[in-house]
């Protein structure tokens, strides 16, 4: 199961939206193989009778009242940290390429 191929790493990089270079993909393929070998023994002790734990401290029904908070930002504040904005909206490149 820990056999990881370069194609897989390239696919994961695409899912994670990172434009990895060929060198990085080659390097990560080797490293991930080693790391997965070290970590996949979790499967040995994780028998079906053991329930998973997603939260270390069990709490439930944590809700807030349906009331507008005091942390509402202005549009200027909202876009202040953006790489590109038109004053009140964020500007991004075209969603589709020319061929699409």
């Amino acid at each position, binding site marked *: 199961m820990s056999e990881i191929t370069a194609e897989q790493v390239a696919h994961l990089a695409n899912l994670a939206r990172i434009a990895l270079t060929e060198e990085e993909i080659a390097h990560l393929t080797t490293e991930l193989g080693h790391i997965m070998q070290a970590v996949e023994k979790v499967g040995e002790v994780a028998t079906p009778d053991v329930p998973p734990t997603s939260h270390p401290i069990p709490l*439930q029904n*944590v809700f807030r009242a349906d009331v507008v908070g005091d942390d509402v930002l202005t549009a200027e504040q909202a876009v202040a940290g953006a790489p590109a904005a038109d004053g009140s909206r964020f500007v991004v490149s075209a969603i589709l390429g020319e061929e699409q």
Partner: protein
Amino acid sequence: MARAALMDFDKALELFEPVIGLEVHVELNTTTKMFSSAPNPANSAFHDAAPNTLITPVCLGLPGSLPVVNAQAIRSSISLGLALGCEIAASSRFARKNYFYPDLAKNYQISQYDEPIAFEGSVEVELENGRVFQVSIERAHMEEDAGKLTHVGGSTGRIQGAEYSLVDYNRAGVPLVEIVTRPIFGAEADAPALARAYVSTIRDIAISLGISEARMERGNLRCDANVSLRPRGQEKLGTRTETKNVNSFRSIERAVRYEIQRQAAILADGGSITQETRHWHEDTGTTSAGRPKSDADDYRYFPEPDLLPVVPSAELIEELRAALPEAPAARRRRLKAEWGFSDDEFQIVANSGMLNELAETVAAGATPAAARKWWTGEIARLANAADRDATTLVSPAHVAELAALVEAGTLTDRLARQVLEGVVAGEGSPQQIVDARGLAVVSDDGALIAAIDQALASQPDVLEKIRDGKVQAAGAVIGAVMKAMQGKADAARVRELVLERATAE
């Protein structure tokens, strides 16, 4: 884009059985968003806000920000689940659905995956032709809406050819309940109409609960329609497509019909259906291929670590169940029985969208027959002529008042129509208009007898005929009297008096 070949609908139904599945998103009208205390644009108080003004650090997914669940959104979701006949999960939880898109501030959507808040329900849906379906609900789960992209450049404002896009996150985080049906079999030629009627029923339920404005044109209610065909006699389901961007009730019906015809043409031609998302185009009445489903749709769901399980108490569920309004289908059945309408009579009312007005008119004292007569008759005619919604023309209370004036003999039908026009023109209540225009029926026999005697005297030949037993000749005299009274007389009383005066002498 080449126009797809379509098969004739009846022919398609001969060869294939349509199977549909519907996913409806309902935007809740809570004051604040699902996981943030920012104002909710799906609440009428915050419609049409300027871009990025309904925003907290949570809506922008700013580093360090954390979601907290809106208690009212939970209540609304449970109410909706109960109204759909669902089980409410003893424990449900949120999960992250991971994918990158610029309208998704965190590049994951907080949704529910393996533990939705409501599941296993059933909704009764009645078509315009009176056919009733029981639609099974697989699940209803809570999630957050995404922001809005505006595509700039290119010629059409569409995503294709745009040079860049603008992002407004006001809608990001609006609470949604997604309701998913099980595959619906057996609708056959009614499949398109059923899809429409189902979404319409969901709207009625949401409105009766008061949990959503449920306006399709505003995007409060959105429908994705899954359609697949299987050849007659085949057990295995066909490959389905999912049509998105269907923004009106009429479009739902058209889109399902279109997909049935399109898929039938492909299958009959020996082709195969691609499992894909398709987009509905209102202007052309067609669908076009979106992204094919692929392993790129690996959403890597996992339990949302920033949020905790929702474990509603039995008390809460019972409180919300007790507060549920009557289900729309049950209410229709009850009203039909109470009003004593025939199937056809009731269907006309139900399809006219004036059921609530009728009910209120009856509640205000009118007989069901009178209420039906006014709403589906004169009021509908006026609305049609003015190209307006009948329910905006006149209030049920005024209609009831009008009907009472007719019942009491104060107004004839003809006079009542004049009064109604006055009400629609905003001149006041029916009684006020009667008083102001002096439209009441003349019930003083003395004035009538004087007019009758004058008419009989000027038409001696008619008087002769009546005396000879040709009672129908009286019509000419009655007409003359009504004209003399400017219509403000009860024709039946005039007739009685005419016969009386003619034979008395």
